[in-house]
């Protein structure tokens, strides 16, 4: 089963779940457009790619607990040269707990695949995330800063995974009197193969529109 299929199944299951749950206190879903830049660095060289991706995230909140599922897919083309484009598939499932109004702790699996005509590189991370939130304009404009580290990671490329971490910072603008909010954020992460044989950095600026329903 490819990483893309696994990500699709996970995301589909999580999207369906909150829609079916009638006891949800809060449910939300958003659509996103990503501007993605990918860099792969090896000893003495590397490659750069960029492209756009589209994704969605579903969120199911009950009290202090949140279940999130996200999925994104896009196409990365080489910035230089004539290398074949890659398809980027990214999916995650996160169980979040909010111990303080401004702090969210998350954990869950994160799958990422780079699909090329010749082969597919699949990464699997089990992440621990911490997210801080602060209002710039109360009830209207909110900032967040998030960092994560892979507690465990794996990749189907030798010599195997050597770890990953990343971060995200962004803004959420809530539209008054409407169940919609707009999110603009920048995220960056870096995954390494064992022995620092190679590192892959993915940066993304994304713009999303979120629909929330109580």
């Amino acid at each position, binding site marked *: 089963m490819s990483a893309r299929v696994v990500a699709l199944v996970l995301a589909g299951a999580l999207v369906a779940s909150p829609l079916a749950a009638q006891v949800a206190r809060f449910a939300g879903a958003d659509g996103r457009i990503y501007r993605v830049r990918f860099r792969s660095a090896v000893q003495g060289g590397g490659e750069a790619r960029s492209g756009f991706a589209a994704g969605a995230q579903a969120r199911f909140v009950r009290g202090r607990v949140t279940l999130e599922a996200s999925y994104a897919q896009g196409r990365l083309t080489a910035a230089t040269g004539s290398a074949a484009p890659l398809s980027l598939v990214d999916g995650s499932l996160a169980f979040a707990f909010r111990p303080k109004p401004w702090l969210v702790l998350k954990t869950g699996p994160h799958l990422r695949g780079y699909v090329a005509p010749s082969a597919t590189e699949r990464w699997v991370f089990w992440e621990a995330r911490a997210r801080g939130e602060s209002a*710039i304009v*109360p009830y209207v404009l909110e900032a967040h800063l998030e960092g994560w580290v892979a507690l465990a990671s794996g990749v189907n490329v030798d010599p195997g995974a050597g770890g990953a971490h990343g*971060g995200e910072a962004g803004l959420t603008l809530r539209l008054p009197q409407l169940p919609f909010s707009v999110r603009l954020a*920048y995220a960056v992460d870096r995954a390494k193969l064992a022995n620092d044989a190679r590192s892959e950095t993915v940066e993304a600026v994304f713009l999303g529109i979120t629909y929330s329903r109580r």
Partner: protein
Amino acid sequence: MRIRATFLALAVLTVSLARAARAQSPAEQLALGIRAYGDLEYDTAAALFRAALALPGPPPLTDAERARALVHLGATELFRERRDAAAAAFQALLVLEPRYRPDQLVFPPEVSGLFEEVRLGTRAVAATVPPITRIDAAGDQVIVWLYATSYHQIEVAVLHANGVRFRSVYAGGVGDSLQVLWDGRTDTGALVEAGSYYLDVDSRGIDGRVVRSLVVPLTVERVHLDALPLPPPPDALMVPERVAAGGTGVRALATGLAGAVAVLALPAVMAGGSGGMVERLAVVGAFGMGGLATFLSQRHTQPIPENIAVNREVRLAWQRQADAVIAANAAKRQEVHLLVRAGTPRTGQGP
């Protein structure tokens, strides 16, 4: 011989009266009188009973003691062959307590016979009124029980303190007992004002003239029910309606700048410098603009629409409750309730 007997009788009377004189209270006089009555010393007994009835106290005789003194006085006078005095004692007893009957085991038939004869010729009533009657609703009334010595015509009315009659309650015959009711209103149907009134019961003779009157003092108070208190102001339930100036703006600016710096620094921190896409400057700009714009706009306090809406609902809910209480209190003020206190009945002879 006759002189000696007279002297002996005077000596006995003197000794008895001396003993009686030592008795200080009317109750003691009564007890000595009953003892003398039992010893057939009727002259002594009569003197003691009259003394007990005449003494004001202390303590004064109770109605039961007074009735006991009068029935014994009547019997004593009868045995002293003073029938008129006996009848007068029984009549006084009947006026005091129309339902009184001599004990057949204590007094001989001739006493009961005279008492009955007097009772049939006496026209008087006694009244029993609850000490306090509350008139709240339309059906509430002051309940007066009348007890008559014998069948006769009476007229019951409520009078002002100056004697002016304003409500006729009953006019007709009364046999053994009768219940009359007063609803606290005048003849026109209006509730009486607060003040002092009298319930007057006139007993009429065969010729229709008033032979005896019973008066029950009545004191009427107008009572208003306690007003309900207003619900406490909802201050504790209110949330701030405005964001304070200064601090919030500075915090917003700091947050925006921190966010912008974080976006700028993230590639170096997370990717070891192998990143830094230009597009992220849009996020940097959004952070900076958001913080700066908020800082500039928050120099004055800013309203919080959600909190204002919440407070509006809280205030409306409180106002609804307060209006209901005010309306209930207004309705209570319109309601008049009477508190009727009855005093001790007094009997007087007719004109």
